[in-house]
């Protein structure tokens, strides 16, 4: 039993970190935001060629052959760097699609949007109801993920697609309607717990975001001088940063345990995933709130990243099951193993 990263896993983290740091520095992310394009298609294909979209898929179908644990490591960095783009639905869709469609998703020539459907009828043959589509501007396909199963659909087949004012400027959102829509592929939750995997990956992004705001705040508290002293000497500021460190640690550890639990085919995988989703999104939101406060006026500016972390955290809180749904799951399930 060992809960620390192996040297191979450490290497995954550092290579992803270097890549995102080089390709998506603050200035480049801001450029993309200003253009409203959000996702850079060249960058997307590079991610595909690095194997990011099939990290947890078997090598026989064109994946890399790692597990959810390694995918969670990747997604923590995606969250940390505020990388824009439909990474989540694309990675999950690669498990639903097959043949040429799967290859196109894996190599980065097709992007998949996350589609949230409430009070809807989602099955292998038919999708019916009103939808919320994340990243609708960049994606070709959509993925609906429920505990019961995951359905891959063509975005063009939705009607009444109406852009909505998403709180996160780097994730576009639209409302849409599905009327008797036929999925192009479907995998039931019993065959592959894609909803549980997705919840863990959202938790991983949230944990990355919580670590990023912790680090931004600590750096500011060390360097910002007032009354002749760095503001971090004051306990009101120091303890705010400390609380962020505690929340970030809880989020990261629970997320990795949830990922390992699923990789080990344990019976409490859904329990651990819901716990991770709840703890990590709470950490992301609370840390972002604290980061804005610790940065003072700077924290309230568009230029500073704190608000982007806060806005991203709000969307993560709703993706792959809301807090309320995961809490309901947690109370219904038998206790953890």
């Amino acid at each position, binding site marked *: *039993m060992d809960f620390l990263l192996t040297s191979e896993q450490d290497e995954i983290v550092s290579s992803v970190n270097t890549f995102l740091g080089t390709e998506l520095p603050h200035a480049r992310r801001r450029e993309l935001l200003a253009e409203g394009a959000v996702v850079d298609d060249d960058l997307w294909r590079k991610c595909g060629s690095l194997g990011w979209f099939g990290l947890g898929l078997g090598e026989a179908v064109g994946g890399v052959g790692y597990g959810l644990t390694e995918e969670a490591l990747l997604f923590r960095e995606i969250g940390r760097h505020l990388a824009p783009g439909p990474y989540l639905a694309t990675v999950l869709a690669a498990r639903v699609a097959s043949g040429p469609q799967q290859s196109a998703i894996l190599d980065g020539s097709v992007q998949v949007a996350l589609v949230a459907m409430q009070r809807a009828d989602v099955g292998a043959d038919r999708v019916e109801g009103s939808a919320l589509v994340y990243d609708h501007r960049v994606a070709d396909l959509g993925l609906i993920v429920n505990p019961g199963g995951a359905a891959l659909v063509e975005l063009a087949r939705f009607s009444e697609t109406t852009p909505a004012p998403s709180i996160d400027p780097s994730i576009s959102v639209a409302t849409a309607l599905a009327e008797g829509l036929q999925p192009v592929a479907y995998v039931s939750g019993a065959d592959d717990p894609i909803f549980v995997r997705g919840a863990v990956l959202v938790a991983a992004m949230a944990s990355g975001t919580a670590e990023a705001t912790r680090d931004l705040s600590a750096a500011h508290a060390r360097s910002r001088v007032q009354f002749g002293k760095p503001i971090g000497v004051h306990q009101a500021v120091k*303890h705010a940063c400390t609380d962020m460190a505690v929340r970030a*640690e809880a989020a990261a550890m629970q997320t990795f*345990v949830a990922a390992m639990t699923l990789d080990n085919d344990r019976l409490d995988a859904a329990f651990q995933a819901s*716990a991770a989703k*709840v*703890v990590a999104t709470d950490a992301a939101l609370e840390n972002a709130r604290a980061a804005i406060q610790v940065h003072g006026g700077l924290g309230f500016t568009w230029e500073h990243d704190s608000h982007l972390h806060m806005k991203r955290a709000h969307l993560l809180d709703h993706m792959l099951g809301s807090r309320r749904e995961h809490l*309901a799951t947690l109370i219904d399930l038998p206790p953890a193993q």
Partner: protein
Amino acid sequence: MDLDLPPDLVDFRDEVRTWLDEHAPKEPRPRKSQAVREFDAAWQHTQWEGGWAGINWPVEYGGRGLSLLQQMVWYEEYARLGFSGIDCFFVALQHAGPTLIVRGDKAQKSAHLPLILRGDEVWAQGFSEPNAGSDLGSLQTWAEVDGDELVVTGQKVWTSFADIADMQELLVRTNREAPKHKGITWVICDMHSPGIEIRPIATIDGDAHFAEVFYDEVRIPLSNVVGDIDDGWSVAMSTLSFERGTAFTASQVRLNETVEQLITLARERPGPDGRRPAIHDEELARRLATARAEVAALRSMTYAGISRNSRQEMPGPEGSILKLFYAELGQRVYRLAVDLLGPELVCLGVTTGITDWQHDYLGSYAFSIAGGTSEIMKNIIGERVLGLPR
């Protein structure tokens, strides 16, 4: 990363479980001090007879010398039976004993270590003073060398189990000229010595676990000094390398059991509307579910901490993150118990199994004070983990 216990540890778990099932006391632990001592001593003696005394002590000193993972398994099983691992032998087994092992001389070791393991010698800690709490280094209890004795005069406070202890690990000032951490001496003090007066302090849960201890020219042989005169601070810190976070496993398992008990109670008892079970109350259900999620995170952090500690020489400041998270979560859980059990807990008291909820709720106020206040933990994390200025 690897979630599974290796096969030899699975066998070890079975061995521990079987032994504990057969030997652990079944009756609840008493509250009053002398009865506590008798109960804890009998249980410690049973563990010694079974070869389970001093699980983290090296074999050459009579301990079991278990690996970190074996210790973790032991504490998990131990806690499942309702033991927190924090009884009147805690200081002897986790602190004084390890200090003697690392820094004591041969005579000191042979005089005390076997007695501790057998359950025949209870130790108390004599560190905190009225003016030296979080700032322990400014302690003032004075000890003067007189021939081959130290003569101690002063006062300690918050000394747990002082009234039933035989020995005390006592920190005294032996040099007022040196910088504050360089003038302290660590000495073994016989609690039955003339000149010691113990005044128990009643705590908010009605028990008197700790005491004020007054020293009026108490004479202690110089041969009881551990390490050198004026070098007591480093002696006190030497046990830190012993504390690897495995004993904390018991606290984490206990809190998990507490949350599970609350969920069971919420299914059985009527909720705020007086009709449906409490679990159907939306607010209570949400808070119970959140507690479950956070206890899961506590467990993940505990195991990660043990993995980390098995790779480094000295445990790092990350342990403070765990302690802080536990203290705040534990208090939220007991506050939830109050809201769930309602006026019954507050006015009548509720006991389920060996759990007295009112008593345990009151005890939870100590979580953020004992063993370093949460404020001090936050300073440690801020300064040593995040690199914030002092």
